């Protein structure tokens, strides 16, 4: 019964229904998540304990070689003639010790306070001026402490691998088998261990330039790092969840009320923008693709090439050009005035609501060629006889579109739509280069009426140096994106390799 009702619904109704169902199911899925939690935690605990049992059995059953590996990494392996690994472990331990003693420890010790003295002014008699002596730099303390923590974690992991690795080798020898030689070991990095060879550099890049900075900024969100607390001249310190409270509207000061209001406005526009930008582009791009694909249309290739060419022109060129053409004193307004069509310029980009509409329309101009390209290939895959039988049943083109084309396209292109939507939530270029977030508003702080979370984040960082608040905005942006991705991934049946994603 319910299934039948569901099948009778139109595509948008189905979408609404499924979204509702998702939220209805949310408490239950959260509950089941927590119900499964003890089991999962137990699994984690067991895995964690197995680390200790492994170490324990290595300590108990291992010979002197394993036992000296507990203190001097790699020596056991060297004794077992596993020179390559042994020497690398030993070298790693030495370097780690040097790093901690001469560098890491200094910073880690100050992590709790983020430094006590930032800089001291001293009168320099020889030069006759005040000189500054810099001591603690909160920023570097936080950055290097974080780096040190990463390195300590890596060290603990390597230490564990060293102990168990040595023990494994001993067991192999006890069983009377031959250990792998150095040459063989090296060769495994083009075969059995090839993934380590391939992924080490890319992952190092991600850890240093993405993971570490994200952790850093998450910590910054809990500090008062802003214009008044700029290292190296001043220190900043931990303030707990104050920034979060301010953004969410729990702050007492008038300033934080304004900030919370700005956050709500910007968030709302971000979601509205992403929704319209994604779906208008998608639907109209599909329409253009259908028109070009239609039987009997000539010069298909020409039309397609003209549109594809516009993708190639660097986006910043087209966007900045548009921002000038549509300005109050821009060519379009000037032309229309001189032709007598209008009396005074249309505020395409200077009125809040008009600017929002203009942005969505200009974004159509930018995005339709792209979605046309995506849709063209897929449209050709829809079996022709489906339309044939629909026509025999008396369906017009609109019905055929609603019942055949749209469901098929939605089914196949859901992953594309998801990435587009998420991309639009963070679409810096279109907003920043077209309006720069303007027009400004008196009720909003550091943000204009068309600012997205990402452009606001940019302004807070680059122009206002409000790093603490900017980090909070960044974290909220992440939450928004994550929530929408979760909803969509859950809804889409066409994500075939779902088990790979989740």
């Amino acid at each position, binding site marked *: 019964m319910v299934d039948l009702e569901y099948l009778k619904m139109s595509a948008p109704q189905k979408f609404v229904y499924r979204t509702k169902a998702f939220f209805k199911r949310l408490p239950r899925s959260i509950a089941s998540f927590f119900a499964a939690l003890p089991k999962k935690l137990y699994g984690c605990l067991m895995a964690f304990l197995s680390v200790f049992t492994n170490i324990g059995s290595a300590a108990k059953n291992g010979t002197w070689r394993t036992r000296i590996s507990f203190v001097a990494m790699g020596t056991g392996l060297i004794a077992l003639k596993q020179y390559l690994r042994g020497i690398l472990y030993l070298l790693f331990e030495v370097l780690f010790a040097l790093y901690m003693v001469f560098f890491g420890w200094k910073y880690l010790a100050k992590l709790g306070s983020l430094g006590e003295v930032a800089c001291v002014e001293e009168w320099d008699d020889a030069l006759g001026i005040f000189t500054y002596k810099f001591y603690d730099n909160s920023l570097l303390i936080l950055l290097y402490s974080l780096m040190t923590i990463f390195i300590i974690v890596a060290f603990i992991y390597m230490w564990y691998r060293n102990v168990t690795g040595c023990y494994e080798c001993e067991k192999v020898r006890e069983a009377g088998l031959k250990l792998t030689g150095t040459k063989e070991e090296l060769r495994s990095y083009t075969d059995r261990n090839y993934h380590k060879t391939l*992924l080490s550099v890319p992952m190092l890049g991600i850890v240093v330039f993405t993971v570490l900075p994200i952790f850093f*900024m998450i910590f910054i969100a809990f500090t008062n790092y802003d214009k008044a607390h700029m290292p190296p001249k001043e220190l900043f310190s931990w303030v707990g969840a104050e920034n979060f409270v301010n953004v969410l509207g729990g702050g007492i000061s008038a300033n934080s009320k304004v900030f919370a209001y700005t956050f709500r406005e910007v968030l709302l526009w971000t979601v509205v923008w992403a929704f319209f930008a994604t779906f208008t582009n998608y639907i109209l791009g599909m329409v*253009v693709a259908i028109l070009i694909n239609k039987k009997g249309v000539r010069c298909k290739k020409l039309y397609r090439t003209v549109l594809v060419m516009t993708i190639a*022109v660097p986006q910043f060129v087209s966007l*900045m050009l548009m921002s000038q053409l549509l300005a109050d004193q821009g060519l379009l307004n000037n032309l229309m005035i001189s032709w007598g069509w209008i009396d005074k310029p249309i505020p395409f980009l200077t009125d809040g609501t008009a600017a929002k509409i203009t942005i969505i329309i200009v974004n159509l101009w930018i995005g339709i060629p792209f979605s046309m390209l995506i849709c063209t290939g897929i449209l050709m895959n829809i079996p022709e006889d489906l339309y044939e039988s629909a026509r025999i049943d008396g369906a017009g083109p609109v019905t055929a579109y609603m019942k055949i084309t749209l469901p098929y396209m939605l089914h196949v292109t859901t992953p594309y739509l998801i990435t587009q939507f998420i991309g639009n939530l*963070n679409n810096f270029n279109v907003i920043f280069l077209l309006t720069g977030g303007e027009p400004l508003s008196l009720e909003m702080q550091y943000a204009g009426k068309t600012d997205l979370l990402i452009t606001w984040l940019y302004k807070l960082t680059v122009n206002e140096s409000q790093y603490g608040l900017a980090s909070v905005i960044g974290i909220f942006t992440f939450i928004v994106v994550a929530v929408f991705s979760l909803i969509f991934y859950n809804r889409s049946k066409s994500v075939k390799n779902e088990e790979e994603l989740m």
Partner: protein
Amino acid sequence: MEGKKLRSKKGSERLKLAIIHIVLTLICLIWLVPFFILIIQSFRGETGMSTNYFFPKQWTIDNYVKLFTKTKFLKWYANTLIVALAVTVLQTLIVLMTGYALSRLRFKMRKPLMNVMLILGMFPGFLSMTAVYFVLKEINLTQNIFGLILVYAAGSAMQYYICKGFFDTIPKSLDEAARIDGADRHTVFIKIILPLAKPIIIYTILTAFIAPWGEYMFSSFIMLGDPDKFTVAVGMKQWLDKESVNEYFTVFCAAAVVVSIPVTALFIWLQKYYVEGVTGGSVKG
């Protein structure tokens, strides 16, 4: 009677086609007119941000002369070109390596790694920029082209998805046959997979090369304050500030033409691969 009906149907069909043709031509015009404006404005002799007539009354190439002699445009162009070339090489290598490893090799951390990258991708890229900036500053790479190259290339592993999707479609039986013949995984990658991956390699090269030309967010932050190190996007954006737009708008148009021509030509030349990559990647997920 029958014939007449058929003919009228044919007639309405023809009318429909005519309307479609008109609509498509209009669409093409709408898409081309701004670029047409860009080109004629770049030859405009009158100064100022805009005129109140469509075609300029004085035609000149002064804007181009000014662009190459009186501005830092050539420097910016060289910067962007170097960055684009370097990023292309690094990013292509990294994406291919990551794509192959995650598509073909099986190891314990494979799925966790993919999940982690998915989650990392949800953080706004600019969030990490402050920290990256200070890391770069510590190693003296701010306001430096190498710093920018590093920032662009470092995150490229996260764009492995389309490449992995492509590798997934290459039959595994090829690998297995080679492995039976004694080839190790490295040989399989170089000798078997890569020669078959031409479309995706060209797609990666093309997207990697085009991206730096239009990127503003990171480059403006890293190069902040040193006009000699700007990329074209950052430098040209300055010309459109309220103080300089009247003087520089036509120069901006000339610069835009100079930037667009090679990139667009390259794109149209390799269009086929781009379309394949985009459609393949977005559908297979």
